[in-house]
């Protein structure tokens, strides 16, 4: 279990990479997270999360084709690895277990 620790932001990024399957690179990821979660994301935070998870083995990346857009610079597309998928599943399970463990009365009083 300990091996699959995911931060909240990391989890969001990882899920978004999966959502944007095949088209997940810096700009689309940032836009997707900002529009879905309605919060500002700095490129710095996003990129460091991406690289960190790549190092952990949750993500794979490869360069796309160079085009005339963006000054001829290539995009780096990210995909979720099997390990990343597993990490997500574990995190989801953990949460579900926690939810299930809440007694029914706990939220009624509030």
């Amino acid at each position, binding site marked *: 279990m300990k091996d699959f620790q995911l931060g909240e932001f990391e989890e969001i990024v990882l899920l978004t990479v999966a959502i944007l399957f095949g088209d997940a690179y810096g700009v689309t990821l940032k836009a997707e997270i900002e529009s879905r979660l309605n919060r500002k994301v*700095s*490129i710095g935070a996003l*990129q*460091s999360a991406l*690289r*960190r998870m790549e190092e952990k083995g949750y993500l794979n990346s490869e360069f796309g084709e160079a085009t*005339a857009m963006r000054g001829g*610079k*290539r*995009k780096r597309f990210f995909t979720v690895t099997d390990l990343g998928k597993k990490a997500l599943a574990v995190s989801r399970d953990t949460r579900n277990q926690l939810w299930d463990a809440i007694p029914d009365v706990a939220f009624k009083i509030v």
Partner: protein
Amino acid sequence: MEDLNIQPPRGANRLLAFFCKTEYLEDIQGDLEEEYILKHQKGHLKALLWYYWQVIRLFRPGLTKSSKINHLIPTNGSMFRNHLIVAIRNLWKYKSGTAINIIGLSTGICAFILIALFIQDELSYDQHHVHADNTYRLTVKNIDKNGELSRHWAFASAGHAQRLKADYPEITHATRFYAWAFPDIQIGDKVFPSEQVVFADKDVFDVFTFPFILGNAESAFREIKSIVLTEQSAIRLFGNDWRNDDILGKTIQITRDATKASFVVSGVMEDMPENQHFHFEYLAPIEFLEPVFGEGMNNVTGNYNWLTYLRLQEGTDPRRIEQYKDDFFDKYVGLFENGIPAKKAYDFELQPLLSIHLNSHLEGEIESNGSLQQVYIFGTVGILLLVVACINYMNLATSHFSRRTKEVGVRKAIGAQKSSLIQQFLTESLMVNLLSFPVAIMLTWLALPYLNDFMGKQLTFNMLENGELLLGLILLLVMVAIISGSYPALFLSRINLIQALKGEAAINSNKWNFRSWLITFQYAVTIGLLFTLAVIEGQMKFIQNSDPGYRKDQILHLSMSRNIRNLDVFKNELLSHPAIHKATYASRVPTGRLADNWNSAFFNDQTAVETTFRLPFILADEDFLETFEIELVAGKNFTAAMEMSTDSVGYYLVNRAAAKALGFDDPEDIVGRKLSYGNYDDHTYKAGRILGVTEDFHFESLHSEITPMVILKGDWNMRTICMQISPGDVQSALAHVEETWTKFDPINSPEYQFMDDLFDQQYQAEERLSTMIKVFTVIAVLIGCLGLIGMVGFIIDTRYKEIGIRKVLGASVFSIISMIGQRFLILIGIGCLVALPTSYFFISGWLDGFVYHINIGLLLVILPAVATLVLTLITISYQTLKASLINPVECLKDE
């Protein structure tokens, strides 16, 4: 579509390439550029700042080259440590010098930050509206018969917006705002009197960006009788916990006169932000007013009560819309009754939304706007103060460091390179800056509430939320450290080794050098500010002492309520109090604006000739002249029996300026002549006689000239009642007024002001400017004096022996003082030569804003120079006197 011509900032890219891991660089930079091009459409500067900010935030452990982090720490780490230790020791050793430095620097920085916050806020007005760039306010100009501009209104007529939008496809959205004279709101049995309900077109949410808390823009105006609240009004109507109730769909009653209607709450918006040029608390669909106003909704001439905003298609030139004016008036009005084409009498001007706050000062502005001139003045002063603070540091540091020439000599002798010495002194200046900044920030934090209170702003100093500010502060810190540290560092590292070791003075204090220029600059700024202050104060005193031509003391001004119907009874009731002598009704009173203007024709002999100049009017009763103590120079006053609304003739009083404009230099000659005045289109246009002529008085402020005007004896549209009150009994008179008011209008509470307050309010902007300049001057003088103390101390130090020898040879105390002091005299002289013409240029522009103003006399020029001289003498006197009284043995016994 991407535009390949847009180049991202190269400096930022270089910075990124410097620290970012090479293998990541290409795609990250690509991502940045892709977004940059998108952002670029919203404005170059914004995109640029964003780019830099993002690059800075990419500086994170995971993304940087690991070796680069180590590079940032100087490689000669041990020397750096040594510099730090020496810096700390020296700062500690010369505590008073350090304190003077920190006080001077932090005061300057604090003033700069405050001004920067103020300017940032002034420039941010209305920026939050998504379509701000394509939104314009439609304003209408009245053109007089000579083709000249008569009045320029911030408002348009009711029929403009919809007709323009229907006729010209470039106008994609149009909305009006109409404040329907403060109706009462009722929920259940609770009544909220006089709420400002504003009616607007459906397009309002497409023109402006108003975020909704409850409901949304699409459904807000679906029903005609729906109303949108703001958070503030929701709290007022439904209490602090309105969020817990489901207030959407609740009904509120709106009552004004005979009109009663139930409105359904359809949404709650966030409160309109401070930095917006209008603030409303309720919005309701304008269609509701159509049955109320009937044909009036189609009016395209006059009746300027409808704030009108147009959103144009992307890229439309607003000038194009303005040129449709002729077609528009030809189509909807054609010729006036007097045969003049309507298009000659009106002009449109489209004001960009973003320029309204700083540039627009038209008739009837919805709120008082800022001023670009003030932004410039404050900006200039802010930069000058910062420079003065830096100069002060340079001066003090140079004098201070020159006591350490031996240290420099020793360092050089054992092989310190020039660069190492520069590094050392820069480290020290950075240290002082690092100490000053927290002090400056604390000062800012303490001073901000006062600034807010005073300027009527709600500025916040939150560095975490205000990214630009944080970035700016860091840049400022680095900049100030480098600027203020550079001169001492360069200067000291250049000293000759032998001289330094001998301990000779590094600087010949007698020589005219760069530092003298620095002090001259400081003097120039101080003198310039003192001069500006003297002129502003002079003008304010002139205003206070000038006779406006009417009485402004002990006059109570009370705004009337429409619930008070029987004016005569109300007035008599008020007058029953012994302390209330006289009372008069009027549509407008002095200190207001002469905004109402109708047509007029003057009968010189038998034929009526239309007047060619603007002749505005006010309505007043027979007690107006007596209450305000306005002198009648010819003819007679109104009598109570005259009543224009019922009689078939008009009763007119004119002022002397009007008599002159009509061709009568002697006011007696115009009395009894015939004048027709009123609105062509309704019953108000009446022939009558000029009963009397009043002395000229300043109805409007001293900013504008006394213009011709006419007083009509009227009994409608009386917006105010003014009373003369005897000085002793103000409290009981006020109580009587309130009591009487409540008897006549139990719902609204009376709103009263004293005339002299209203008079002062006309000059509020100038009053604020004057106080701000006062504060800045005090800061500049404070910084300057601190610098002087340091300078004099240094001069005396280096000429210690000289003073001793001079005394032995018989020099008097006075000659020693003048020896030290005369140098400052020269500096002040040069400072005057630089400062006076420059500030004269600025301030005469400000004075031109008044038609009635003081002339800048010799006294105003001499005063700041003398004040500076006296301040200098006082500042340096203690040290100089001490030096001149010294026993020569003391300074000559060594060696």
